[in-house]
């Protein structure tokens, strides 16, 4: 870059001084709240007393189940995503773009909302069970969903199908249709065209999708805790249990270390595969290969796929808000007479501080807390993200090293971050402001990644032109930079806001009982018995869904064209 090459002494020194000033805040923050906790976890787990045979057995057994459920989830996600990718890449049909957008929504939703959605649909008090109980006069819910491995798997498929769709659909529509035609003319029937030509060519993107899905399933926490129940412990859940219930920080640290090693390994594998899949499919023009159904088999495939996808992706998200305004339970003590009807009770109940409540405050206080935390996280992550993004926008040698370091917190799971805070700042955790610090850590990579391309696109020459026309530095910044930066800033703020609102993993370890956030409140309501608690969980989750949707819309509307996604 120019400033480095035109290196007379004083210029050079001032360049490094400016660069140093940009990096000072973000790096100190990461050092204090990411690397220091990380070192503490290492120190805890590599203690001789921690590395006992019993502890290692726990770690190994937990790792075994974690890998097992992640592998199973990945295969199922592939089974759902591959036909969906074919559907979107190959065919035109009415409602295509709407369905495409719908499949992408779950990925952005907080885990507690997804868990609450499936609970509203298939849980013991969900629509399906209530309907079956009523129509067949059953006294107990016939569908056992919540608390099974199946629930975990279904929720994971719900979350990650969009990854398979995006990666494979992109590769598939980039594939030259003539390759398949050549194979057909050489005597290959449709299955052999897929097996011999298309699937081998999709190997890299398929592998990349599988690795990414596996990574997300491997570090999944909220879904397992809320839908799997106590009998299923992945590394994440076990860390949470060891740290909070058993107060066994060394074992929790050991598990966190195992978790980190695996996550880093898979991230490296994914990055390599993703690069390879991009090289293979990039050079094709984006001419569309999509067409209408031509044969009866194709028509059946499209109809079936659209039906399954829309049911799978719409029903849970529809069941949730509807359940939050419906009273469908028998009143206490009266098992036969079911009072059914619309109600706003669950919402108004949120504002009342009951004496036997599980909180010490009215539940709606959780929403106030969440919004305060989200606001603080937005401000903090922007304050830290701006200088970092400004430095990365004009990268030098230093930035090549610092860039991956800045993204590193993404690789660590939220629960591990929370654990790091506990082992490092245990005494300070009485202060509620530790929570937005953790949220900032999670949001920072996204904020930087959103700001950086905008700052890099700032037209240097326009600014010079403005200066030559007599504008002061501030005026030219106001006229040229601000309009571009404003969009990116709002979008980054949307990311930080949405992430903070839905954050469950770190918060569940760090929050004080008297300062619940919305996700924590939903979790507590769901783990309590009774129709009123259930209803309030639904109301709270609907609220969170609405707030998150606002955040997502803000990000989507302001997204710069061509900004990277995964």
């Amino acid at each position, binding site marked *: 870059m120019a400033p480095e090459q035109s290196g007379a002494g004083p210029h050079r020194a001032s360049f490094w001084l400016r660069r140093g000033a940009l990096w000072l805040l973000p790096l100190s923050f990461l050092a204090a709240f990411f690397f220091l906790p990380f070192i503490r976890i290492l120190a805890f787990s590599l203690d001789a007393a921690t590395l006992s045979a019993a502890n290692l057995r726990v770690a190994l057994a937990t790792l075994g189940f974690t890998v097992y459920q992640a592998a199973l989830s990945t295969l199922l996600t592939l089974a759902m995503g591959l036909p969906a990718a074919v559907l979107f890449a190959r065919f035109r049909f009415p409602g295509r773009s709407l369905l495409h957008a719908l499949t992408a929504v779950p990925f952005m939703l907080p885990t507690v909302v997804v868990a609450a959605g499936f609970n509203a649909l298939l849980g013991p008090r969900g629509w399906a069970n209530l309907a079956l109980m009523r129509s067949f006069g059953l006294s107990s819910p016939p569908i056992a969903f919540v608390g099974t491995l199946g629930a975990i798997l279904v929720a994971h498929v719900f979350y990650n199908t969009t990854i398979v769709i995006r990666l494979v659909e992109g590769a598939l529509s980039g594939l*030259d249709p*003539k*390759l398949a*035609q*050549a*194979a*057909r*003319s*050489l*005597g*290959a*029937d449709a299955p*052999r065209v897929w097996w*011999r*030509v298309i699937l*081998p*060519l999709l*190997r890299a993107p398929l592998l990349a999708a599988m690795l990414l899905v596996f990574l997300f399933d491997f570090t999944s926490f909220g879904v397992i805790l809320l839908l799997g129940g106590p009998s299923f412990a992945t590394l994440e859940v076990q860390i949470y249990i060891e740290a909070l219930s058993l107060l066994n920080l060394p074992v929790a640290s050991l598990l966190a270390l195992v978790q980190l090693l695996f996550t880093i390994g898979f991230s490296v594998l994914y990055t390599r595969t993703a690069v390879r899949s991009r090289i*293979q499919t990039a050079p094709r023009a984006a001419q569309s290969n999509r067409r209408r159904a*031509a044969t009866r088999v194709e028509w059946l495939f499209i109809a079936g796929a659209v039906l399954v996808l829309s049911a799978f992706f719409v029903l849970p998200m529809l069941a949730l808000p509807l359940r939050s305004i419906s009273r469908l339970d028998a009143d206490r003590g009266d098992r036969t007479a079911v009072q059914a009807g619309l109600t706003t009770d669950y919402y108004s109940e949120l504002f009342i501080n009951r004496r036997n409540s599980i909180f010490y405050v009215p539940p709606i206080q959780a929403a106030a807390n969440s919004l305060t935390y989200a606001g603080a996280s937005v401000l903090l992550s922007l304050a830290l993200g701006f200088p970092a993004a400004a430095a990365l926008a004009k990268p030098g040698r230093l930035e090549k090293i610092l860039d991956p370091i800045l993204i590193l917190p993404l690789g660590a799971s939220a629960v591990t971050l929370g654990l790091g805070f506990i082992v490092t700042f245990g005494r300070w955790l009485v202060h509620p402001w530790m929570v937005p610090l953790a949220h900032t850590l999670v949001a920072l990579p996204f904020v930087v990644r959103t700001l950086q391309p905008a700052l890099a696109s700032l037209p240097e020459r326009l600014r010079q032109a403005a200066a030559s026309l007599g504008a002061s530095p501030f005026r030219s910044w106001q006229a040229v930079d601000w309009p571009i930066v404003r969009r990116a800033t709002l979008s980054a703020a949307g990311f930080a806001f949405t992430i903070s609102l839905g954050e469950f993993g770190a918060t569940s370890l760090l929050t004080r009982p008297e300062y619940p956030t919305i996700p924590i409140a939903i979790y507590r309501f769901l783990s309590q018995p009774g129709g009123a608690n259930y209803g309030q969980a639904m109301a709270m989750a609907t609220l969170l869904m609405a707030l998150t949707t606002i955040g997502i819309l803000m990000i989507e509307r302001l997204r710069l064209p061509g900004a990277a996604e995964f």
Partner: protein
Amino acid sequence: MLELSRIHKSFDDQPLLRGVSFAVHRNETVCLLGPSGSGKSTLLQIIAGLESPESGTVSWQGKDLRNTPAHLRDFGLVFQDYALFPHLGVFENVAFGPRMKGWQTDEIKRGVMEVLQLVDLAGFERRAVTDLSGGEQQRVALARALAPRPRLLMFDEPLGALDRTLRDDLILQLRLILTRTRIPSLYVTHDQEEAFRVADRILLLHDGRIVRSGTPREVWESPDSAWAAQFLGLGNILDGRVLKGGRRVQTRDGTFEFKCAHRHRSGDDIRLLLRPTPVVGGSQLVGVAEEIIFQQDKYRVLLSGGLYFDLNAPPKIGDRVRVRVRLECLGVVRSP
């Protein structure tokens, strides 16, 4: 052997093919020539069974192929951008067809070696197709199509992506191979030079119909329509009106005597072809040289009216030039 009868096909409600009929006979290379977007490639796809026509039939030795899927038609296809399987090496690309046909391993090996020899690529078996040059890739594509010994070969603009010298070499090689293997073939291109060199018979596709069919010489000598003459680049096209007596025609470049097989009446508006090569005893035409282009063995002289002629000795720009040309009638535009 291959017979097409009244093929119709539209795209986005725009008719593309409007009743195409023709046949390809034993040991014959037929070249389908037409401008880009005239539906040539679509026609190949229909024959290959990769697209279906709205109406009309494709048949092979009298058997309707309507219910024969693409992979059972046994028609080889060679594409412009080769469409080689990038995940397979040269040998596996060529062996793909024989494998699909279920040949024995040693049969496959022998067959692959044989066709690779035929296209001059012996020794390339283990190379990756992505490492080959364009010409080599196209020869692998040809070998791949030849390997399963198809009953018909189809070429979709096979040389369009190659540079001129390579093209000339490959055309020669292709003709040799087609003659040697005696596989009937259908060759699609928009390049008239290529078509004239490759084909035993040329079909001109225009506006969704075959407008002219014949040997290269026949088509060259009498294009039969102004569109064909223009598309084939045969020479100047000139409008004129037949004068009284029917033996003379008046154009903006002068009045000429002409002879023609068509029957004309005086007052008819007709279209004329003036080939660029002067002839002895033709009608005389006078013009001012405006531009001169060197063309190896002759000079193309552009006259101020827009007509051009190929002369052996170049005039100077601004000179008055006299040429004797033959006027060929391409048809009547309008009768009074």
